[in-house]
């Protein structure tokens, strides 16, 4: 699925977090977003996923020529279109195990209704959900932690599980917010491998916010640079890294 962001402006009182930002992320591509702290990267994710409503501009999602305007939609409605996001500090449900955290992202549909709960008609859905979740955990070598609670896991594992939630939800757009922050290199490798696998097997679209540019460079096709809420530069990774304005922004900002 492709993601189009048109002239997005988001204000918080007097503070302009996003200023006339436009982007186009083609289907199945991998795009990076970089920029100094406070440049509006996470705000952008919040607007795309429906947590914030922009003052101006639109967010569109779709395939080919058919684009849907999802500006102002509720986060759960947007999520059901197949968009999933992770957080800078991973957010998993603390009282549920890793396996159950994945299960929450399964589309139970009617099996999650009060009626079905009372009549115990959810067994079949649950079996399918559990086998899907176990399959995912097995594919990514995480079966040993399936029964652990988030409190017992390392940051790296948390970030990986957060990303895998998207697989449970059959997501086609993954918004990852600083996935490599605060995790060891070997875990970052695993994460990069996971992204590559998901991207090629599922033809998923990835938008990744990152500070650790080196990890990002080999993974993405295109980079957007945000600074003070505005789009400063964009282009292929090699171009952007050598762009004067970008270097200045990072050193000066």
């Amino acid at each position, binding site marked *: 699925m492709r993601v189009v962001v048109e002239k997005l402006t*988001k*204000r918080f*009182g007097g*503070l302009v977090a996003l200023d006339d930002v436009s982007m186009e992320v083609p289907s199945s591509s991998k795009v990076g977003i970089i920029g100094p702290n406070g440049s509006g990267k996470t705000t952008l994710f919040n607007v795309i996923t429906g*947590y*914030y*409503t*922009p*003052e101006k501009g639109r967010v569109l999602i779709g395939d080919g020529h058919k684009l849907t305007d999802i500006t*102002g939609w509720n986060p759960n409605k947007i999520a059901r279109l197949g968009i999933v996001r992770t957080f800078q500090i991973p957010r998993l449900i603390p009282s549920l195990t890793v396996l159950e955290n994945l299960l929450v992202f399964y589309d139970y549909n009617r099996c999650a209704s009060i009626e079905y709960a009372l009549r115990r008609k959810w067994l079949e859905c649950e079996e399918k959900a559990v086998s899907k979740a176990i399959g995912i955990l097995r594919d990514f070598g995480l079966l040993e932690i399936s029964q652990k609670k988030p409190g017992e896991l390392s940051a790296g594992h948390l970030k990986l599980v957060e990303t895998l939630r998207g697989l449970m939800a059959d997501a086609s757009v993954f918004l990852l917010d600083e996935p490599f922050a605060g995790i060891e290199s070997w875990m970052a490798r695993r994460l990069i491998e996971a992204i590559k696998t998901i991207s090629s097997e599922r033809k998923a679209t990835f938008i990744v916010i990152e500070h650790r540019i080196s990890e990002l460079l080999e993974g993405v096709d295109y980079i957007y640079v945000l600074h003070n809420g505005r789009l400063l530069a964009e282009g292929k990774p090699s171009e952007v890294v050598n762009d004067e304005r970008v270097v200045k922004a990072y050193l000066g900002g």
Partner: protein
Amino acid sequence: MLITQDLVSFFLFSLLYLTISIPLVVAYRVTKVINFTVSTYIAYGAYTGVMLDYYLRRSIGGNYLLVTAVASFIIVGAIGYLSNLLVFKPLSNKRVKPDVLMIASMGLWIVFKYILYVISDIAGYFCKANLVSYGQINYSDVASLASRLGLSGVQESYILFPLVAGTSITLFLLMLGKTRVGRAILAVADNPTLAALSGVSVSRVENLTWFITSGLISLAGVMWTSYSGAITPEIGDSLILQAFTIAFIGGLTSITRTAVGSLLISGVENFGTDFLSTYLGVPASVKPMLTFTVLIATLIISPPLGAAGGIPYRFRRGRRI
């Protein structure tokens, strides 16, 4: 419609609500607890007046506002401080959800209320004094102040209310704005981490805030003793709805908005009730329903944010944290 009477009530109740809600909002900003014990602070403030009245009347012949106010401030301030020390701080150290703090405050509310009833029981048994429903209190120093100002015929509460409310709020706001301590409190209220980095002892500020705000809120109870003919341990309960509705109107952050909220609720209650009973025949008992309607309206239109807030659906209209 009895406009004059409404105006007087509006005046008195606005002062009462201001005395409660302004410290309440500052307390919330620092402590992050929706604290039901506020009802206790008011009741204990009133009962300090009652106890002092009972003893002073028999020994000296009269009760003094100054003595009562100071005693109430110190006693209830201590109660607030101890509540934090023994209950709220240990709980928040365990990183519990804000709900749990609120539940604990409800537990404290119940415990304190019934302690008051037990005290009344004991007083009733040993001194044959009825403390469960005590009459209106007259303060000698207020009476002499009134005669010095040439206002001898005026009801005591008309003088006492502005006196207490005015002094406490002015002193409080001055402290917050002009003193180092006050500025430290506001710094912790805004951003505890930043304040700690600037060298402020966050836990000392918290303790101080608990003491001061609880003490100030208790003064509302003292005010009440000169107004009401029946002082019972339940008086705080009847004021909580208003106090928190006002705090929510203020967004739990802005003192100015809270002040506006106090006037609004006082106005709605006094003029609104009279209006409804005069023109629509609705009985005066509709008063709490009116305030509750304002509460619901506030939650729908402009709910408070921050730790008390939930999923920020109001961001959908583009407003800031």
